[in-house]
């Protein structure tokens, strides 16, 4: 039954009128996947908004402004000062104010800003890798892919540190010393789901990097696979911008 005719028609030529997006179907599939993934993230962020909206806004923290030092009992201190209560959403600036190797200083959102910078920078190197791919410059593609992988891994390391600090202060999926328990649970779910995407992206990038080194795409005559993982990587980056805005800034 199976006489295979596919191999006789190796080259696919477009014939159905004007191509709707002028892209190969592989790239189209990546776009479609990203669209659907965007809805998954939206559902989580909407859940965040729904629950966040059912609490009162963070208590304005003018009191804490002059307070620039963060002791070991900072959380307790804030609870006593009435800034971490059950009815009000905690102010992210007061929760995420640690920085590795620096103790005792109140650095609101400094660390997460660094993380954001790292991730955006890795997107820049990804763009450079894609651009080098268009010029078929194998060594440059490899160099920038490597930088992207390092950036992604660094971001994941930062996230691990941040989770570790957060858990160290007593945050759990089922309890939260900073106020409403959903604050911690949502933090773990949303950043965890994003972190999982970054992790998958790093794995994909490593696979593509090894293929670049092995000359697979050189032989194939184009670096489209680099473009496809590039799309994914930029998407993960874009989602982080939303996660950052919703979770840390609002």
């Amino acid at each position: 039954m199976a006489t295979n005719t596919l191999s006789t028609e190796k080259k696919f030529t477009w014939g159905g009128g004007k191509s709707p997006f002028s892209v190969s179907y592989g790239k189209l599939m990546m776009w479609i996947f990203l669209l659907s993934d965007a809805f998954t993230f939206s559902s989580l962020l909407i859940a965040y908004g729904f629950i966040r909206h059912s609490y009162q806004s963070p208590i304005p923290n003018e009191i804490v402004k002059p307070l620039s030092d963060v002791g070991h009992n900072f959380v307790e201190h804030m609870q006593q000062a009435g800034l971490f209560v059950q009815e009000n959403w905690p102010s992210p600036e007061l929760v995420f104010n640690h920085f590795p190797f620096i103790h005792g200083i109140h650095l609101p959102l400094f660390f997460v800003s660094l993380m954001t910078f790292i991730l955006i920078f890795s997107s820049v190197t990804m763009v450079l890798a894609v651009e080098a791919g268009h010029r078929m410059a194998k060594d440059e593609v490899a160099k920038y892919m490597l930088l992207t992988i390092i950036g992604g891994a660094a971001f994941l390391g930062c996230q691990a540190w941040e989770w570790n600090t957060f858990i160290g202060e007593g945050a759990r999926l089922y309890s939260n010393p900073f106020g409403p328990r959903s604050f911690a649970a949502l933090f773990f779910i949303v950043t965890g789901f994003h972190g999982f995407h970054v992790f998958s992206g790093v794995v994909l990038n490593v696979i593509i990097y090894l293929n670049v080194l092995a000359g697979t795409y050189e032989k194939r005559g184009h670096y489209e696979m680099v473009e496809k993982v590039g799309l994914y990587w930029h998407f993960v980056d874009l989602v982080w911008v939303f996660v950052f805005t919703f979770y840390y800034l609002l």
Partner: protein
Amino acid sequence: MSDHNTHHNHEEHEHHEDNFISKYVFSMDHKMIARQFLITGIIMGTIGMLMSLIFRLQLAYPNMTFPFLEGIIGHWGKDGKLDPNFYLALITIHGTIMVFYVLTAGLSGTFSNLLIPLQVGARDMASPFMNMLSYWFFFLSSAVLIISLFVDGGPASAGWTVYPPLSALPKAIPGSGTGMTLWLVAMVLFIASALLGGINYIATVLNMRTMGMKMTRLPLTIWAFLVTAILGLLSFPVLLGGSLLLIFDRSFGTSFYLSEIVAEFAGGIERTGGSPILFQHLFWFLGHPEVYIILLPALGITSEVIATNSRKPIFGYRAMIGSILAIGILSFIVWGHHMFITGMNPFLGSVFMLGTLIIAVPSAVKTFNYLATLWKGNLKLTPAMMFAIGLVSFFISGGLTGIYLGNAALDIELHDTYFVVAHFHLVMGSAAIFGMMSGIYHWYPKLFGRMMNETAGHIHFWLTIISAYCVFFPMHFMGLAGVPRRYYANTAYDQFNVFVDMNEFITIAAILGGVAQLIFLGNFFISIYKGKRAPQNPWNSNTLEWTAPVEHLHGNWPGEIPHVYRWAYDYSKPGAEEDFIPQNIPDAGQTDPMEESTGLPVASHATTSAHAVA
């Protein structure tokens, strides 16, 4: 994320003989995958229907004992009495199986897989590998759901919508335990399958059409499958997010869906901060498009079957496309009409109501287009055509009650009564099943290379449509009188005693419907081996799939893929020799497939095509 180059490398290796595993089990051929989806769907559908018969028996004869129940469902039917908890489990799993496993995967999975590559003129799906994964995720998901029937405490029992708190607190009712966890696992696997399939369908339709197959020449089936895939792709992820949060609520102590009220009722547990309403929003953001994920493929199949068997062009081709698109877009902004009584702001309710009632417009356009296509047509009443007309009938009778339910003020009275059950079983259940049956009878020659028995098909049709109306029509009256759905027995309420006879009537009709399906099952499975060999183009249809050889071959067409010169609905064209002109026949003087056809094919062309086709 398969790249086309790797795919082609793979194809080169597959040049050799297919063995049993690669041909029948882990097949990457879209036609085989379609058969796998269909047969799995039929098996799941049989299970779901048997479940409905068991709980219908309970509803008709709440005080009688049926000793055989103990033989079928063991301790759930002790002394021939159905356990109330298992009643809840039955309605839950019946709903889940029918909505997701039969009418989503069984319908869309079968016909999108079979028809998209064949009707757009492609060798296979964009990524055959992902297509295979899609089926196997679906299979795993079905297996997990079936396994959940046998766990301690029974399967999920919170209704097919699995609202928290019954689904969020593992100790709420017996079915909230392991069974509910497995339900969620099954659903996550199902979503993975739906996404893998959907990405493939969209990419194939947009990017792999043959020469000349413009979007405005696509058969309406393909338009329906395309919009269905887009709906699934955008709505299933939201259920994925919702299920993820539910899994965390169940197993890791979070409280996204647990509020103060729930915590109070659950014995003062310290889990507050969320809201069960959040789940309802996330669920119905999938749930409402899901209705159209079920219905649109059935409507697409009907368009094709009605046009072919009326021997007339479909009436209002572009209006049909427009209404498919309009229904698709509107379906995303009306999910709140399932939640009118959740304490929603009345203004918001009126917005959802407006959107809901507007859906009646494109639906009516489709209905009248079907009627206008049938009008004075040269009707060929094949079983497929009968089922397609049956769909139109259900679409009208069930759709009209949708206008009642979409009205926020009326919905307060009708919510969660048998009126709702009657409405969605007619417009979504029966209509979509009829679309699926129509598709099976029409494309059986393409699926299995043989014909089904027509007489048995007609008997199947008449018994099914009579029993479906006898089952669901009386339910409207029960619902208007306020009989609530999902109750184990209504004997505790004096005012519902008038419906004792009606319940019995419904159950007898349901059993008749069940018996009718045995005729179909027999016809289906016997015809695979014993049916008459199918001719090349049994229904004298225009679409491309009938130009492919009856015997399946990997790659669909032995030579070059046919080019397309016209739309799919040139039936009974005045002046033409035959009453149909297949899409791959050029007009006299038409050389470029992209040109619009204006005249008629050269006579010899038509006859040669007719010979080749016959």
